């Protein structure tokens, strides 16, 4: 409850950000997208417990769907984004049907393999994607006269995206699906005893997760306005999305958001020292988190808060 008010406050503050820092929009957009992706990833990885290292594939499907539909057929970007989401959900469904019988780490390995195969497809099938050459997004329909290539418009779009994803996850977490996902993550046999079909729940989580990641991908595509398979279907991007959520705290509504904030700020602070080697921070933080805070930052804090609250109530 209190965290809800806190987040609403943050959201309102974020509305004024472009007025205060008009020159720092790019990094803010990047933060909003990373936070949105990590929160989307977490539906599958944190709530349903299936760690994917292939989510860049959904960023790719989302951005390419928008770019191809807009570039070739002049279809409005919002329909393109919707198509990307639908395609991603379908992809996740097939992907999950094939791989969900694999246990833990083998599932993770299979996600890398599938995402890599999709990257090769994006490079090789030039008739569709223009291959390694890449694809430009140069004109888009303007909703209500807004220029989608304007950084301010992109900022607010990304902010809405993040707010919608976090809001959705926070809402899901309290309800039936949220608990069913947690049950499947904790113990598949016990969840069957509670009448839950684990495969179905994992598929729903994967489809939601993929579709929401693709929506962020569509916004990212417009933001970049130039897509290259090597950048978009990029294994390090998959790793980044997953680690952001894990460092922040898996299976918590606000953990991935906190993780994204920490990582983007850290990357900025060390930008001069590390330049392109910015994934070094991810590496160091994930090793520290695994050893010292296995539930992630927010996860560990929440875990302790539940115990403290219970201890207080038990005392009197």
């Amino acid at each position, binding site marked *: 409850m209190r965290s809800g008010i806190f987040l609403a406050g943050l959201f309102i503050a974020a509305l004024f950000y472009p007025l205060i820092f008009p020159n720092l929009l790019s990094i803010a957009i990047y933060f909003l997208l990373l936070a949105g992706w990590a929160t989307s990833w977490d539906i599958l990885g944190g709530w349903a417990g299936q760690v994917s290292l292939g989510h860049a594939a959904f960023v790719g499907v989302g951005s390419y769907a928008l770019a191809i539909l807009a570039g070739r057929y002049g279809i409005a970007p919002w329909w393109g984004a919707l198509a990307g989401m639908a395609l991603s959900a379908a992809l996740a469904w097939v992907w999950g049907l094939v791989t969900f019988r694999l246990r833990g780490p083998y599932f993770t390995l299979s996600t890398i393999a599938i995402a890599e195969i999709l990257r090769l497809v994006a490079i090789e099938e030039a008739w569709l994607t223009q291959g390694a050459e890449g694809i430009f997004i140069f004109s888009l329909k303007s909703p209500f006269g807004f220029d989608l290539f304007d950084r301010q418009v992109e900022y607010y779009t990304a902010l809405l995206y993040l707010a919608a994803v976090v809001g959705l996850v926070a809402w899901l977490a309290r309800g*039936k699906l949220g608990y069913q996902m947690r049950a499947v993550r904790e113990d598949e046999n*016990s969840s069957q005893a*509670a009448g839950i079909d684990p495969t179905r729940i994992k598929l729903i989580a994967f489809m939601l997760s993929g579709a929401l990641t693709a929506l962020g991908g569509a916004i990212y595509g417009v933001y970049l306005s130039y897509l290259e398979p090597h950048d978009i279907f990029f294994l390090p991007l998959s790793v980044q999305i997953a680690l952001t959520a894990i460092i922040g705290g898996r*299976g918590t509504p606000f953990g991935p958001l906190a993780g994204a904030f920490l990582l983007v700020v850290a990357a900025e602070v060390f930008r001069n020292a590390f330049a392109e080697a910015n994934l070094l921070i991810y590496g160091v933080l994930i090793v520290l988190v695994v050893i010292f805070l296995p539930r992630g930052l927010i996860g560990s804090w929440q875990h302790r808060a539940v115990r403290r609250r219970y201890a207080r109530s038990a005392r009197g």
Partner: protein
Amino acid sequence: MHAALEAEGIVVQFGGLVAVNDITLSLDEGEIFGLIGPNGAGKTTLFNALTGYAPMRRGKVSLFGEDITQLPAFVRARLGIGRTFQIERPFEELTVLENVLIPAFLHRARRSDAERVAWDALEQAGIADRAHQPSADLNLARRRRLELAKALSLKPKVLFLDELMAGLNPPALAEMIGFVRTLTKSGLAVLMVEHIMKAVVELCDHVMVLASGERIAEGSPEQVTNDPKVIEAYLGDSDEPGDR
């Protein structure tokens, strides 16, 4: 009128080992059916076969006359088969209430309705006072109660209890026997695997004895405990009935 649960000629095999061999049983509403036998007799395996967790070689299971042999475990749960696990499996990252909420959601999609069902189950299993405790922190007796509450909040018609009493101290045991006794008042059928003879004698209407996957005796608790075959089956086993 169909029996609540009927099983005919159940056979379960693991490789060359026949863990359950041609077991037939039937259980009516409101009845408590006891399944006893030395360790490794195949009791848990029979439970798993009936509830959908172990693949059956042969046999047929029906619930109120409906054939459920081919159905996966979660569908059997939805149709009214509740169970506890011999090795308790709470959802450790969740509190007691949240654990019980999960099966409660099966029939109630709204959280407030599901919570009401969950609270009822917590009361019935005597663990409502711990509702907000993280389930990983519970002691053995409370983990067992949580296990029972989870099964109850599914609102089952047939309940399988796998050694729910094992390891409990006398007061906790007496309480647990009390909880189980009240369950059948509403017509629930209970199938229980139990080593504790006190619980078997006090609760069960009918008892079957299993050894090495075979049915070796069946009858009232008194008949069975006086059966020489049963005494013999237990002699080779350190795990005497009633000594825990």
